[in-house]
């Protein structure tokens, strides 16, 4: 793999299990370990604190040749969450503009390769392919859903933003976002479950 293996990672107890807080919501902190991922189930409400990397269509398209040639990506994906979003510009004095999720399926082509490199989480909206869901099981990953079209409210949870790479892509550049208590739900877990299918089954009349 092109990723430098010598980069150190904060130590994580491999047995740590994420439990729900008294309000029923699970607090998730990044980076994620396999044990973290295993303790998340589809339908779990979560609050994410830590780092999210933003990336969508154009950034992923640039990852592809790098991954094919075993070259390093602009950031170390191991243990991280990629948030599929293209924020609107920040007003002066604001951290960020509106920052809701975009459709995850457009990144299906790239996701299994990133999961193989150690990416642990993805966040977006909408269904993922069977290939991506199989890769979540195989490499222990999780797909979170953020509320699409709630971009103004979601901006409240973003503390800091910096561009990491591909500034020329504008809204599609890769940004490192520090978030606190970012609300999401587990759509696809590493056990093969899918919230969309289960939800639809439960409420179809």
């Amino acid at each position, binding site marked *: 793999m092109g990723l430098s293996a010598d980069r150190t990672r904060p130590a994580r107890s491999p047995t740590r299990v994420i439990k729900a807080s008294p309000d029923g919501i699970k607090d998730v902190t990044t980076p994620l370990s396999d044990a973290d991922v295993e303790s998340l189930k589809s339908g779990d409400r979560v609050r994410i604190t830590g780092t999210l990397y933003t990336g969508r269509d154009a950034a992923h398209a640039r990852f592809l040749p790098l991954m094919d040639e075993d070259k390093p990506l602009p950031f170390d994906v191991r243990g991280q969450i990629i948030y599929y979003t293209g924020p609107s*510009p920040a007003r002066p004095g604001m951290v960020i503009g*509106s920052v809701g999720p*975009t459709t995850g399926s457009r990144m299906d082509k790239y996701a299994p390769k990133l999961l193989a490199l150690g990416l642990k989480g993805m966040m977006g909206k909408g269904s993922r392919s069977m290939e991506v869901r199989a890769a979540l099981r195989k490499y222990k990953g999780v797909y979170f859903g953020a509320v*699409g079209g709630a971009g103004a409210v979601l*901006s409240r949870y973003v503390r800091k933003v910096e561009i990491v790479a591909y500034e020329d892509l504008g*809204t599609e550049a890769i940004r490192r976002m520090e978030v606190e208590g970012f609300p999401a739900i587990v759509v696809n877990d590493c056990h093969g479950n899918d919230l969309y299918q289960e939800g639809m089954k439960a409420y179809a009349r």
Partner: protein
Amino acid sequence: MREIHVSAISDAVKKLCMDANWDLGTDMLRAFDRALTTERSPAGKQVLEMLKDNAQMARTQKIPYCQDTGFVVCFVELGQNVHITGGLLTDAINTGVSQGYTEGYLRASIVKSPFDRKNTGDNTPAVIHVDVVPGEHLKIMVMAKGGGCENRSKYKMLTPADGLDGVKDWILECIRTAGPDACPPLIAGVGVGGTFEKAAILSKKALFREIGSSNPDPAVDAIEKDVLERANRLGIGPQGYGGDTTAFAVHIVTYPCHITSLPVAVTIECHAHRHKEVTL
């Protein structure tokens, strides 16, 4: 003959673009409240509450309701006794879009060519439809159309034998396949009749009608209500997390059609249903 200067058109469009993105219509806010009284799913209710909160925050802080601030689709009714001075109508509209998106901190989401995919930087150009109508007024209707839901819009050429049942099933199929990807609760704009392009344009225009209002044609109104009721039995729910509120409305506009055809276009619109209009 009444004269309208292009600067008045640009100023109007600029304001419409900003207002559309910051200020979700009261008909949508009422739709959220109505849905909260019928939605059984706790996750669905949480989503609806968050959307209300989102609309409130967008309006008060002038942050776009959704970061995808859309493709500007502009319907213009141009009175035939109006003379536009100082330049071209389309240029005036695009100037307004550029100013609105730049000065309003709205996202630039348009690429110049579908193949090279370089961003134009100011969300221009708009998609503009002009109808020449009697009179001395200029009506401008602007919609900020989201990409995620637009990607789930569909067209089908049915046959006369497919009939009304075929049309209903097709609309429902479009809502079902849009699913969680298009940010439900959805609105389906439907154009039935005309030709291939006419049906598609009507499906957009249908979205401008007030949410919760009845179709002026009682027969078509009954069709809309039937399809909406069936859509909300699909179980998709807010954001696709499961629930009773999959769609807020189905709006149908019809047009005469050829003896061989039954064209049906369905524009899928999300809850970020952002549109404003003004008459100059």
